């Protein structure tokens, strides 16, 4: 077990963990100095519930980035699924949950469309997903032209209960899901395709199918994010997806996933997502002038990435003696 822990901490996600720890410690410090007491369960719970959607999108994004691609359409898929969730999920008992499954299927299908275009039509991921981003965002506006809609409180109690940390269950399931995925043959092949697609094809990895599946999974993650988004905010907004594009990519970067593909872990991206949320709180309690908040958020990103690059360079220098 200690060995496993050691591997976890020295693995590809360690940058994400380091950054998360640093921000968490800073958060505790500024919070305590500012308010004179440690954060309360209310703070933890609200951090958890607001982060969940980003955590899911970051998982999907990291999968795509590990294959050497990028998914800009997460914004569109989140928006589309938010719109559908806020307008269609009604009723009581199990009906709303059946609807939620349908929405997850919808997100997966949207992602698969990306995958097919990228893998079969061989159009660059950035172009493909930029185009589908517009399409999905358009669909979202069509479904929900004005912000609104609602979500049955039953769903809310199960997904993001405002008093009980049900979100923890879903977060653990997400971690577990990743660990399982990593232990499938598919998981290994995802890394193979991202590391060197030509070689992967040469040794018989069905690269196209892997990519389609990965983009579909990213779509599924976006749909999950959408469901949790509506659950925390209790309503929908067709513009809800936009911020997730940049923040998910930032999470992936902070999480230490290599943009050249083949290296990194969704766990790192998840840690990155939580860290990005905590940074907002740190900036808040540090009393940084509102005008410079985005400047500081940007600086945080740059520093995190520089740290990651520095660590990679040191690691390579140590190995370089070969």
């Amino acid at each position, binding site marked *: 077990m200690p060995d496993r822990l050691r591997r976890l901490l020295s693995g590809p996600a360690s940058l994400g963990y380091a950054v998360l720890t640093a921000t968490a410690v800073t958060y505790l410090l500024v919070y305590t100095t500012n308010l004179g007491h440690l954060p309360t369960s209310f703070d933890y719970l609200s951090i958890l519930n607001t982060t969940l959607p980003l955590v899911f999108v970051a998982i999907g994004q990291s999968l795509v980035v590990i294959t050497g691609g990028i998914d800009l359409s997460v914004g569109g898929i989140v928006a589309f699924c938010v719109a559908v969730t806020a307008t269609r999920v009604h009723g009581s008992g199990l009906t709303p949950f059946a609807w939620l499954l349908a929405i997850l299927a919808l997100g997966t299908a949207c992602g698969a469309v990306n995958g097919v275009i990228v893998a079969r039509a061989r159009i660059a991921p950035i172009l493909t997903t930029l185009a589908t981003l517009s399409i999905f965002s358009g669909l979202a506006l069509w479904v929900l032209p004005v912000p609104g809609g609602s979500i049955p409180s039953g769903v809310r109690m199960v997904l993001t209960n405002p008093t009980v940390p049900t979100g923890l269950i879903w977060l653990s399931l997400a971690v577990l899901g990743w660990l399982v995925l990593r232990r499938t043959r598919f998981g290994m092949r995802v*890394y193979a395709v991202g590391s060197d697609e030509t*070689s992967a094809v040469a040794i018989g990895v069905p690269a196209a199918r892997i990519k389609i599946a990965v983009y579909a999974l990213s779509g599924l993650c976006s749909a999950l994010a959408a469901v949790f988004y509506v659950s925390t905010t209790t309503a929908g907004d067709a513009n809800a997806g936009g911020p997730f594009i940049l923040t998910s990519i930032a999470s992936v970067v902070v999480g230490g996933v290599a943009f050249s593909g083949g290296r990194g872990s969704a766990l790192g991206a998840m840690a990155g997502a939580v860290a990005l949320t905590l940074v907002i709180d740190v900036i808040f309690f540090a009393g940084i002038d509102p005008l410079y908040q985005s400047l500081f958020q940007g600086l945080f990103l740059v520093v995190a990435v520089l740290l990651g690059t520095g660590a990679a360079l040191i690691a390579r220098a140590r190995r370089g003696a070969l």
Partner: protein
Amino acid sequence: MVLTEKSEMQVMAIEASGVDRAFGGVQALRGASFAARPAEIHALAGENGAGKSTLIKVLCGVITADRGKVEIFGQQVRRVVEPAARRGLGVATAFQELSLIPDLTVAENLLLHSPPRGRLGLVRRGRLVPEAEAILHRYGVDYIDSRLTAAELSVAHRQVVELVRVLATEPRVLILDEPTAALPDKQVEWLSGHMRRLRDAGTCVIFTSHRWREIEALADRVTVMRNGTHVATRENLSEAEAVTLMSGRTFEGTYPDVTTIATGETALRVSDLRGGRLQGVSFSMRQGEILGVGGLAGQGQRDLFLTLFGAQRAAAGNLEVGGFPVTLRRPRDAIRAGLGIAYVPEDRKAEGLFLPLSIRDNIALATLARRSSGGLVSRGREAQAVASLVGQLRIGAGRSTSQAVGNLSGGNQQKVLMARWLLTDAQVLLLFDVTRGVDAATKRDIFDLIAQLAAQGKAILFYSSETEEIAHLCHRVLVLREGRVAVELDGPVRDAERIVAASLKEVPGA
């Protein structure tokens, strides 16, 4: 038993006929045909650019032919067949451009297709390393750490893993493209053993090599290719015959005459150089001298070259070029300082060449600064300089210099790399294993060029994984051992055994 063997002999293990294939504007194969029987070792020979690699890719299904058909055990494979499906037919291929996944560990690379599964069909990651170690042990290569990523391995070890990956499938048709190019002699023997074992068990083994003695030693039959077509398939073929068949030309000696001793001034003086594996290397070389660097693999040869090129920092030591002390922090320093050190990297695919760029751009890259005025590159002057070099080196058989380098064969790519550094008017040339994976005729061109450059007064530091070449081409040979110059031999040594013997002396455990 005899009967079945006979009937199997009727059916070819793998057969290609009338295969055409073009890349961009380059026709790599024109009506190529090839056939190999079960239970034979079949060598595929030809100059660089003859179409061997392309043919192999068509055989194993990585690329599809524009025209023609491929049959495996008499069964025609459909036009579009992924390598995955050919694996099902018992065809396994080790590629020249290594197909290991760089970021995966050795264990993951070996077990990518059939990882150990536990309950629920999940991969048991804990079992990956033990199983991979079992495989490595079975093939007698325990010295490879299965926990390292492929990118962390040396080129030679990567090649070994690549071969083990293929061998471990116990294929019915085994295709090896330049399997020995990156291998030291010991591993070549190891591979030969496995090739023979598989042949005896009925496998059809196809391989390509530029080392004639390997073909002679291993192959039951040889097929020679030239310009993308089949020239001949013979059971007995002498080297001279083969070279004539491959090139359409005839050759006298393989090596140029280097008996004349250089008498120029000191071009490069190295004293007590340390860093990496170097434990204090000192030597000097004169203008017009070809100085060989020999020794067993991994005695610091690579570090010496990288340090002199400025790609690796020296921990200590002094360097004088043309009598002036210099400090090298990065390759640009080396190029700039007027000392003109040129280095041809070992792994063409990984470092050095920009495959999508043209021959001209690749060659001109190192000297852009000198031929540009006000930041603009003068296309005219550049084209002129490049054209003369391309002619001199016979690059790409008269193809346009605007052709993308990625479309060239391996040997021609190597020439492009050399040409790039020749254009810098370098006074000291560092040539590190420039003949690796290069065919006999191209080697001959490169050797001639080296001799010619030396005659022009350039100082040349030469390393090759083929000790034979160091023995014949160099005026003087430094034998490195454990990061130091152990012995200095006057050349031409001619007998490679002398260098090998010098390398082994006093090595503990040898």
